[in-house]
């Protein structure tokens, strides 16, 4: 659906050229929820704006649904933008217009004239985002979460194939963030719309995305399925992001303060086995002895998964037997120390 081929974007700031995006290539399939994660200034907001040409790429190829975005003329670009919705961190609603009028804007842009038809479509969209009772309110009368729902309804008005989400939950509290992510997930499932989700919060990626690209300094430093990136991060930046999300920031500190001398292993469970009692059986049947230093059990999008960091105790032979049993059940064992 979206193909970026060694796309670059550079700005001239004070006579100096700055590269915001450096030769990035990404391929996003139809119906996929694709996360782009990075610290502020990593180039992710610029990257997403290259897709609907709110920013023009300096080099490379940008294809959206078979259309070469960089070669479009004014009319072509406006037509493309009607097929690519966008939501924003600060919602960017018209404060002088009601909820219904805000949502109707893209319809009027698309040339809808008949008020009854516009009203009917707006009512559908309000129902989709759960704001039926707020149709005639002004944005200032709404909470942050409700404002973002209006933003989502507006972005979906023309039934786009792609939805770009630029830090859509970064201005919201954790509870509201969850409800907005659930809404986006539902919309993706119901409408099959492709989503590109820009965020600096790994939790957003974990709850929402199928695949993720990690950006640092204008480059994509790691890319892949969310479970893979989460459970086995390779690049340093990714590892920092994942640790932050897992609340495992200071593993070294834990190891030091626990004064562990023996081996330390990371056990990773993915899929239904995350809920199976393999660890208990390896204790019972093989005499594996350990102490848990840190851990996390939960879901990555819809996949159950868990990760435990354990210090291994007791005889090496029983350790090996216990670990072998775990490996056989599909648990990944890695030694940290």
């Amino acid at each position: 659906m979206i193909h970026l081929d060694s796309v670059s974007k550079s700005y001239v700031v004070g006579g100096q050229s700055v590269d915001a995006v450096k030769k990035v290539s990404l391929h996003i399939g139809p119906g996929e929820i694709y996360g782009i994660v990075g610290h502020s200034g990593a180039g992710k907001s610029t990257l997403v704006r290259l897709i609907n040409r709110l920013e023009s790429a300096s080099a490379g190829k940008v294809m959206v649904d078979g259309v070469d975005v960089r070669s479009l003329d004014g009319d072509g670009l406006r037509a493309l933008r009607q097929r690519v919705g966008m939501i924003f961190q600060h919602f960017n609603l018209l404060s002088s217009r009601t909820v219904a009028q805000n949502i109707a804007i893209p319809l009027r842009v698309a040339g809808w004239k008949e008020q009854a038809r516009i009203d009917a479509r707006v009512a559908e969209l309000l129902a989709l985002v759960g704001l039926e009772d707020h149709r005639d309110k002004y944005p200032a009368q709404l909470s942050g979460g409700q404002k973002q729902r209006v933003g989502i309804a507006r972005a979906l008005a023309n039934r786009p194939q792609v939805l770009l989400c630029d830090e859509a939950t970064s201005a919201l509290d954790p509870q509201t963030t969850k409800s907005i992510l659930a809404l986006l997930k539902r919309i993706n499932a119901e409408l099959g719309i492709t989503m590109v989700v820009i965020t600096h919060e790994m939790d957003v990626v974990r709850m929402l995305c199928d695949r993720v690209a990690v950006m640092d300094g204008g480059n994509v430093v790691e890319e892949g399925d969310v479970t893979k990136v989460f459970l086995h991060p390779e690049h340093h930046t990714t590892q920092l992001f994942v640790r932050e999300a897992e609340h495992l920031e200071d593993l070294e500190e834990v190891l030091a303060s626990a004064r562990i001398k023996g081996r330390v292993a990371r056990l990773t469970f993915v899929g239904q086995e995350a809920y199976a009692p393999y660890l208990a059986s390896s204790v019972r049947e093989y005499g594996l002895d350990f102490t848990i230093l840190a851990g996390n059990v939960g879901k990555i999008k819809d996949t159950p998964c868990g990760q435990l960091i354990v210090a291994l105790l007791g005889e090496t032979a029983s350790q090996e037997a216990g670990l072998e049993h775990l490996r056989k059940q599909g648990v990944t064992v890695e030694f940290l120390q």
Partner: protein
Amino acid sequence: MNISWMDGLDWMDIAKACLDTLYMLGGSLALTVILGLPLGVLLFLTSRRQLLEQPIVYGVLSVVVNVLRSMPFIILLIVMIPLTYRMVGSSLGVRGAIPPLVFAATPFFARLVEIALREVDRGVVEAMQATGAKIHQIVLWALLPEAMPGIIAAVTVTAIALVSYTAMSGTVGGGGLGDLAIRFGYQRFQTNVMVVTVLLLIIGVQVMQMLGDRLVLRFSKK
């Protein structure tokens, strides 16, 4: 009432002067808004990092606006006499006063409109662009409605500036309250005429400011 204080106060003259001032004000304000609003929008759109960024167009417009704004009104009034005569067939009276008033107020108002538009959140414009809106749709549906409170405040400020300009146009035969104050109050030492006209002007300005503030509040949904 004190008869001697009322000496030489011709209420008919004052009423006529009031009406003249209102005509001058209404006519010049209407024309100023009609001409200044598009000029302000154009200034905004062609300025740096805006939708129609055009440094040369912006530079030229900006210089013209600055030249007109830096000219003291009383000078503009005299410089424009031949032009005014051509435009309305007279450089005297209410009619003759309107062209210089409009020339003086339009650049001032356009600048205020430009400033009001700058206050509109850039994100709102970006969201409009992302829907595929054309520039005129962005201006009419987003920029102007969002800037409306600021634009109404600009109309109020401009109207009040025009009141003081109308007084000056009295010196070249413009008519109105200012003219009355200068001819009777100043040149004939009739202090009571001066006091009454000044009071009327103060009341007029107060009423306009109040109306303006109320409208700003009405249009402000933030």
